[in-house]
Structures are given as C-alpha cells and as structure tokens.
C-alpha cells in the first residue's frame, strides 16, 4: 500500500470566531488516518482560504465556523473557488449551522455539513468516499 496516494486536506477557520477545538480535532483525526492536513489557523478571510487551497494543491477543504456568519462567508468561498477554477475541490463544513440553512449551502456545492456530535470516524470515511477524481 506504499503506493497509495496521500489525500491533501485543508482545514480552515473562516470568520472571526475562535472556537478551534473542533477544527483541530478534525485536523488531527484526518492526519492520524494518513492524510496530509494543512490547518490555516484562525480568522481567515475567504480570499486567504482559497489562496491557501490553491498554493497547497488540496483536494479537500473542511470549513469550520461557529460564529453564525456562514451564510455570508461560505457563499463567498465557493464563489472564489469557482473563480480560481478549483471546481474539483471537495468542500465539507462543520460547526453551529442551523439545519434550515443546509439545503442552501448544499446548493452552493458544499458536499456535506456536519453538526456537533459527529464521530471523527464518520468524517474520515466521508472524505475517502467523496474524494474528487483527478486526472
């Protein structure tokens, strides 16, 4: 299995909130599962996140937000990803996001939204299963 390709994931914290407990646990769990994880640190603007995704050539972005600004910041991130032609990057998100916002966020192209209480194993399986196919 040494030939196995290492999945590259960016775990990002958009917005001004500083609740990084979840993001760090996700980063560590994905890393322990053998993925290459880049964690942005706090308070990243959508521009910074997309720039990092581009520079680091990631296949997956995990967004974590608990401030309630997701309906402003997520659409902007998805828009910028399109602009930079990063359409094949798979995006998932987590944090405090009301269920009623989820359909709209999925419409924007966010693959899945995970709420509190999600086991890390679920995330690992999800990322592996939904990995974008790259040529």
């Amino acid at each position, binding site marked *: 299995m040494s030939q196995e390709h290492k999945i590259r994931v960016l775990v990002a914290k958009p917005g*001004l909130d*500083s609740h990084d407990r979840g993001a760090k646990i996700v980063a560590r769990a994905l890393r322990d599962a053998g993925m290459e994880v880049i964690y942005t640190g706090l308070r990243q603007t959508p521009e910074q996140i997309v720039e990092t995704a581009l520079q680091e050539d990631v296949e997956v972005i995990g967004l974590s937000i608990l401030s309630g600004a997701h309906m402003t910041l997520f659409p902007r991130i998805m828009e910028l990803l399109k602009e930079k032609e990063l359409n094949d990057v798979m995006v998932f998100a987590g944090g405090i996001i009301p269920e009623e916002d989820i359909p709209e966020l999925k419409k924007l192209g966010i693959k899945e939204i995970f709420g509190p209480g999600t086991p890390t194993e679920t995330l690992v399986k999800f990322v592996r299963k939904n990995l974008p196919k790259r040529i």
Partner: protein
Amino acid sequence: MFDQEKIEEIIKEKKRWEQTTLPRWVKTRPERQIEFYNTSQIKIDRIYTPEDVKNMDYLQDLGFPSEYPFTRGVHATMYRGRLWTMRQFSGFGTAEQTNQRFKYLLNEGETGLSIAFDYPTITGYDSDHPKACGEVGRCGVAVASLKDFEILFDGIPLDKVTTSMTINGPAAVLLAMYVAIGDKQGVSRTMLGGTTQNDMLKEFFAQKLCIFPPKPSVKLVTDIIEYSTRNLPRWNPISISGYHIREAGANAVQELAFTLYDGIAYVESTLERGLNVDEFAPRFSFFFASHNDLFEEIAKFRAARRLWAKIMKERFHAKKPRSMWMRMHVQTSGCTLTAQQPLNNIIRVTIQSLAAVLGGTQSLHTNSFDEALCLPSEEAVRLALRIQQIIAHESGVANTIDPIAGSYYVEALTNEMEEKSTEYIEKIDNMGGVYTAIEKGFLQKEIADSAFKYQQEIDCCKRKLVGVNDYAIANECRTIPLLRVTPKVEEEQVARLQKVRRGRDNAMVKKILAQLHDDADKDRNLMPTIIEAMKAYATLGEICDVLRGVYGEYKELIVI
C-alpha cells in the same frame, strides 16, 4: 481528623471486607469497569474511608467560611445570607434588541447583567470593517461607539445593577464606555459595580481572541487593574478565567492550574506598578466552568479557593484575608451540550449548576438547552434561569454552608485536585513562567491533547454521551424554535456608526487619538485618555487601530 488508633482499626476492617465480603459480590455482580477515572484522569477508588483523609487537619485545611484557607466558602453566611448572583450572559443583534433582553431577564428575576459582545467588537474592529462582514450582532451585541452603549443601558440605572463584561483585548475601551455612561447617568464612579473579564493570558492558549502580542496585552490588563484600584473601588477589574481553558479541551485539573498560574502573572504585573498586594488583590475575581462529573467539579471549586489562598499568603505575602479570598463566577459547560435530543441539556445544566452551588460559587450562568444549535431563544433562557431558581428555593442545598464537606470522597478528591494543580504550577515555574509556556506552545499542546483524548473516548464509546453515542434516536427530527439574527442588524448598526462619525467633533477625536498614541508610546496608563476618547465618540476600532500601530498585532502560534 480521627485518632491514629481508630484509623488503624478502619484500615484493618477495610482489608477484611475486601478479602471476605467483597469477592463474593464481585463474582456475582462484577463491576461495570475494571477502573474508573474522572476527566482529570484521577483514578476513582471503590470506596473512600477516613483512611483517605487521615492526614487532614480540620482547622488548617478546611476551617470556617470567610476565613483562611476559605475551603468552605468566602462569606460567613454564604447562601443563608444572600443567594449567588444569577447572571445570564446575553447579547445579540443591535443594542436595542439586547437592551430588551436585559430588561426581560431582570424582570424574570435575574440579579446581575452580563454582556456578550459580537466578534468584531471582541476583536477590535468597527461594525463596518471588511472583516466584520457577516459577523455583526451574530454572537453578541455589536458595540462600536458610546452611542451603542447609551442605547444598551437605556432605562437601566448603573447604581442599581452590576454588570459583567466578557471583553478582553478591547476591555479598556468597554470599561471606558461604562464609566462614561455612569458619568452621564450621574452615578458616582465609586458606585460603579461590575466586572471586566480582562484576562488576556488565557486568550493566547485557550480562547484565542487576541489583538496585540502578550506583553502589551498584559500591559493593558494591568492598566485596568491599576486604574480601578485607584478610581473604581467596587469594580472587579479582572475575572481570571478557566472557563475558556476548559471549553478548549482542558480537563478540570488543567483548568484549575492554568487559571491560577494566570492569576500569579497578573499579581506580578500589578506589583510592578508599585501597588501593594493588599490594595488590589481583594478585587480579583475568577471564572470557572462546571461540567457533568458532579464531585470532580465540587472538589475543583473547593481546591481552587484553598490553593489561591495559599498562593496569596505564601507566595505574595498578602496580609488582608480579602486578598486571599477567591470569589468566583461559574458558567455551566457549553461543550457538554448536545445538538442531539437538545432537551437532555436541561438535565446536564441542572447537574452542573448543582456542582457550582455545592462548590460555593458567588455567581452563576446557566446555559440554555438550545445552545448547541443557535443563540438561546427567550423561552430557553428563561428555563435556564429557572434551573437556578429551583436549586435556590426548592432543593434545600442553599440552607447550610458547604454541605458536602466531610465526605471522605470529596475531601480526598479536593486534596488530589490541589496536589495535581500544584505540580503543574511548579512545572510552569520551572519552565520560566506563563509567557514561556505560551511561546513554547506547552499550554496549547496540553489542552489540544486533552481535547483529542476526550473525543476519542466518545468515538470509541468508552465515555457515554446520552443521545449521541448511546440512546440515540434514529432520524431525529429537531423542531425547537431557533433564534435568528437577520442581516438587517448589520445594516442598521453600520448606518448608526457612520452617523456617529459624521456627527461628532472630528478635530477633537483626532487630537485625543494622537494623545493616546503618545500615551501608549511613553507607556502611561491609557485609561484616562480612552475615557476621554469615548466621551468624544471615538470608535472602538479607532482606539484599537492606534494601539495596533504602537504594539503590533499578534500572530497565532498554531499547535494541533
């Protein structure tokens, strides 16, 4: 607390019980786990007896309430005299909306205010800053200028309530606004009562809402302590906070140890100003979390008081008993709330509140059951407040002081929490103090490791979380009403702020900001100039920008 002969008899009898009675029972009813631990990784014994507290000296280790070492409480009458302050942390949307929520809570029997600010305010940006986009009024109330504070406190006389402000980086700005409002209401500064959280150290390794680097941040903290000591005798200039340390993932012992170490650093920084320890230490206050393990939490609160008293007496040679007392505010734990079966959270909050009250807190915030999903609705907040009122008036636990004292288990655990915290304190001392511990990422790593371990225990069901990894409801449908903050809040707030900037004497603001720059440059206490700036309607963002210019901005040290 027992004579030697009696202890030996008990030890002998315990051995007999373990060899004769117990094995038969273990055979037919084996224990649920081979070993039991609390969150601090302290092994919990099967049974506690006088043997476990045999070295305790009642007068030296427990004593009486309001006397050294304060294990049994800081007030001589405790809740028989006055119940704890029921102080619900609240704030959302505009100043008008939060003013309404304050009045609602006061009307429902709340006895003190506690303001939650939004992220732009907390991180030192005005509501119209590009980074504030989408964040205004979301997680707290938006405050950018004195105008917002005038609306926030409309109809609330500052000589009748005390106000706690959860603010750190820009704490000086918000305290200055409070003083300015007091002046406007004609309330003497000597009458202003309340608390600024003003604990920057924990920001660098736990809550991580930092603006400036550690040293200038602590300079600002100390400015507030010094100013309050000299001018605001009823103000608690600092609330040294373990809550965020715990929420970030620390266990109870780490919460206790790291908080007390921060306290040590603030005593040192204030002593450097030439103040005497007995002048300022009596106004120091603390803030802890309360989690689900009832006895671990009770032991933590009791150990915290005793350990702080010893630190103040032995390390800082305080003379006044009040310099050694630890007054605390407690909040039930946000991170133990579940989004699944949210009503279960009411029961968790009840247990956590009980721990806080049995632990002798001075003030309590109870979380609302819907907080793993959104900001609390009015109904959820009222219910949370009712938990406190039922404990206060119906449970009977407030009728005697420190009712759990003398429990072999709780006393043994209190001792162990204190010992383990002391070990951490010595470790940080040997490392060279809290600044080095932050720079090395030691505290960050300790917390991240504990958080990850806790999550792993839940993931593998070693730790049961009702409704999450056990007793879950398949396809659970959540139908509780959620509070929403609309985008209109941001528009209204930005419009108000821009109107303030247009309507003020801008030449005057410019002059005061130049003065502030000079004060910061020459390392003077910044409080007097910031108060003047607030009265001239300078904004929070403008003040923080001047200080960013002098002190620079903090760059996060990332530790996973």
